[in-house]
């Protein structure tokens, strides 16, 4: 179980009062227990999300202002930090009736006359339909969205507000709908796994983040490349031992099609956008469209990896740099992690 998921489970504990059953599932998974299929049953689930602001620190010590969804019922400004960006995956079970309460604690648009930027959160989960409600969440407001998690898979939730600027600031995250069968990504045995790792891929242009309302997007040039909000060497490893099947839940929250290269093994691509593929295929350099999700399973070889750090998984578009050269943390950096015991 990756550090990331352990962290996710900690964050989830804040929701214990509202999400007792979901917490149980996640805690068992994080402890490495085999979860029996009988534990997953449809139930009403409520999740509180807070769209807040804050800042994160890049490996080259650059501090970047960001926005993010934080799972908390105590929504406030300035909640986002290095430990909760972009937030742990929301995890529900297939069949759950899910209510997501989204509170907007973003700072108000400093120049409201320049709409469309108005910092109104427009919460959506592509692939899942729900009543969009009468209004979006204006700054200071809360909206609720309810849907039935009818199909298992990996989804991305996001805010479409301010014509994409909110997502570029970090208002995105992963939603996992677990299948009815434990340790199985979908309702077919071929999607069985031993270890799962969610990889939310994204990028940051610090110049944009410094001026999200006024930055000319024509000049958008990302210089930080993140896995789960972190750039190498701060990225968490994916912990798996020889023979284990690693479910890689890719979520591309960035704006570029992103290619991840896995050395030493192929991954079997089973699903895209939370739908099983009719023809799964094996890949080692898999390209994920922006805004898309993908589920792939790689079985860790029993032989030694090419690197003493493990089996490298990195951005083949060479986005393995941090910030602008020269700086001591420039390379290696970016979207790079390892699968290791």
């Amino acid at each position, binding site marked *: 179980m990756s550090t990331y998921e352990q962290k996710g489970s900690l964050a989830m504990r804040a929701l214990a009062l509202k999400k007792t059953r979901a917490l149980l599932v996640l805690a068992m998974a994080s402890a490495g227990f085999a979860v029996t299929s009988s534990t997953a049953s449809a139930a009403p689930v409520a999740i509180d999300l807070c769209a807040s602001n804050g800042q994160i620190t890049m490996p080259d010590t650059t501090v970047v202002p960001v926005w993010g969804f934080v799972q908390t019922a105590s929504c406030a400004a300035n909640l986002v930090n290095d430990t909760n960006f972009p937030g742990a995956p929301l995890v529900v079970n297939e069949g759950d009736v899910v209510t997501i309460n989204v509170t907007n604690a973003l700072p108000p648009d400093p120049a409201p006359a320049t709409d469309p930027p108005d910092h109104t959160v427009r919460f959506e989960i592509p692939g899942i339909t729900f009543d969009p409600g009468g209004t979006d969440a204006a700054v200071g407001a809360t909206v609720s969205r309810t849907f039935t998690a009818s199909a298992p898979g990996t989804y991305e939730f996001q805010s479409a507000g301010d014509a994409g600027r909110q997502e570029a600031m970090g208002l995105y995250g992963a939603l996992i709908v677990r299948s009815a069968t434990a340790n199985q990504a979908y309702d077919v045995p071929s999607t069985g796994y031993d270890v799962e790792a969610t990889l939310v891929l994204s990028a940051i242009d610090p110049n944009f983040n410094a001026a999200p309302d006024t930055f000319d997007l024509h000049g958008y040039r990302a210089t930080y490349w993140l896995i789960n909000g972190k750039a190498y060497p701060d990225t968490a490893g994916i912990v798996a031992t020889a023979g284990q099947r690693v479910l890689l839940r890719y979520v591309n929250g960035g704006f570029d099609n992103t290619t991840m290269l896995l050395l030493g093994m192929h991954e079997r691509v089973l699903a895209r956008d939370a739908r099983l593929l009719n023809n799964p295929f094996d890949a080692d350099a898999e*390209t994920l469209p922006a805004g898309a999700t993908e589920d792939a399973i790689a079985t860790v070889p029993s032989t030694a990896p090419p690197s003493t750090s493990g089996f490298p998984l990195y951005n083949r578009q060479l986005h393995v740099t941090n910030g602008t050269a020269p700086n001591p943390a420039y390379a290696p950096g970016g979207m790079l992690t390892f699968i290791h015991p």
Partner: protein
Amino acid sequence: MTQRTRRLGLVAALAAGSALLVPVHAAALPVGAAKIGMICTPGALAGTTRTFNLVANTGYIETPDGNSVFMWSYANADTPDNGHFQSPGPVLCANQNETVVVNLTNTLPEPSSIVFPGQDAQVTATGGAAGLLTTEAAATGGTVSYSFLAGNAGTYLYESGSDVSKQVEMGLYGALVVRPSTGANFAYDSTATQFDPSREYLLLLNEIDPDLHHAVETGGTYDLNALHNRYFAINGREFPDTVQDNGSLLLPNQPYGALVRIQPNTPTNNQPALLRMINAGVDNHPFHPHGNHTREIAQDGRLVASTEHFGETIGSGQTLDYLLRWDDQDNWNPNGNPLPVAPPNYRNVFFKDGNTYYSGSPYLGYSGTLPTGTVSQNVCGEWYFPLHSHALNEFTNFDQGFGGMGTLLRVDPAGGCFASATSAAIVGGTLKSGSVTALGLDDTTYYQVNPKTTTRTSTTTAGQTTITVASAAGFPTAGSYYVRIDNEVMSVTGGQGTTTWTVLRGQLGSAAATHAAGATVTALANDWYAGFSGAPVGAQNLKVTYKGQNCGNTTGTSCTAMPTNLPQQTVKICNWTVAGAAGCSTSTSAGWVTLPAPPAQPQSVGSPDATSTWTLPGLANAYIGTGANNGQVRVLVHTQRWTAPSPTAFSTWGNFMKIVYDAP
């Protein structure tokens, strides 16, 4: 194509002044390497271990706009290359279940290495030092050795695993091809992946930002964030250089061409070509063949459920394998199955002067008359389709279109290139009607040749054995031959080439008789040849096809069939090595070589047309002219009616003649 033209001019200049110039040192290709298609660096096989010795080094590539760009790459340290810089790296070819050893010597100023994406077996490193992604060879001379079992067939990339944001962009990549145990004519261990091994192509894509390379060359700041690609390459070359031959001396450090060449699918020629594609660059490339679909069979060295595409994105670091067959499903030809609408009037079609390659015909395989303004005919009636990145900003060289990530898909006529005669000459006979163009198509127009005639100026007695004729022109200058005067056939046995002949009288069942002064003397044979031009030196599998008939009449526009005593036809080809053009200047010159059976010659040919195809008696080289006769092929048709009873004059009607060959 101006750059190409300029380079061709340069070649001419080099040839003219070669004594003054240092020869260009090109990356050597293995002996016997084809000029078109994927070229393997075979390594050294000992038992089941195949060893490659690579050196990471620096050098320059040339771009079609006249630029040269500093690159890092892998070179083959073994003969014949001996470390000569090349971009991209050598194509490493191994067989499934061999142990592949790659020894790397690093001459770069920083540690370097190789990773092998898609190799799921352990890659064991020996020597070197642990790096972030793999074991590395130290800077400026360090070594490391990698070893792995090539367990799965397929198309793979190998590339640097060190400082990848710089080293991969600088060019440290190449192709690794693993052939399945099922054989070299299969791409994978699947019968569905069979292909024609003579049509195996590799298209390795990459992009180059010359400013970043300049920064590395001059020790400036290298910042990948500044990446602005200006060159978009296939196999390390940008269009139009991509269509140059493998090993072209014009591109001494870019040995791999990218021209893809196929023939239409026929019942006997039905194996597809294999296109191995690798994207070594960082951008996704929407690659796009014009013409037929391609069938995608594998990705990243693993079979996929095959699908057909005419536009498919190949992602960064990805490999895709395609089977490509070209189905001329409508089988258009101007005779039996013409285009359903008239081809456009040439005046309505824009041809760029001096830059248009065109067969002159809208039909695959037919060469026709070129429209005004078009000065260059393509080789053999082939069609060219673009095969390129449909991201049109990548179809450029430094923002100038078109160039860059494009090559051509060449569709040769079914069975290979063919050429039609461009000239015809009668070396025994007279022209009845028609011209050489009548030989270009299998149709109802003929190149018609009558026997040579002359006259006797005086009376001929029945016993006379020496006769004088008005002219000997067009009659054989050597050997015995028959002529006819009135109803008598005589054999000329002496004085050939002069106007005073020694003759035998009353031959072939005729009776010696008296002939009046002024009687016509008619040959009972004719000889003519057709000349072909532009046959490329190095062409092989040359075949000659001739279709024609012989008619009993020498006047009129319809053919009078001869029910009996058919003329004997012998088709010969000029061996230029005997005596050059002089060796094939007359009907009896020494250079003519009778085309060998099958079908056996001579053949009895009357009417209607008879069609025959012959292969050459040996390698094609001797039959394709050089020097002043460069590219010429000459085919003689000798027809005689020298058999009893009492043969009469005839005319020879040539309908169609072509040569077919595999261009080099």
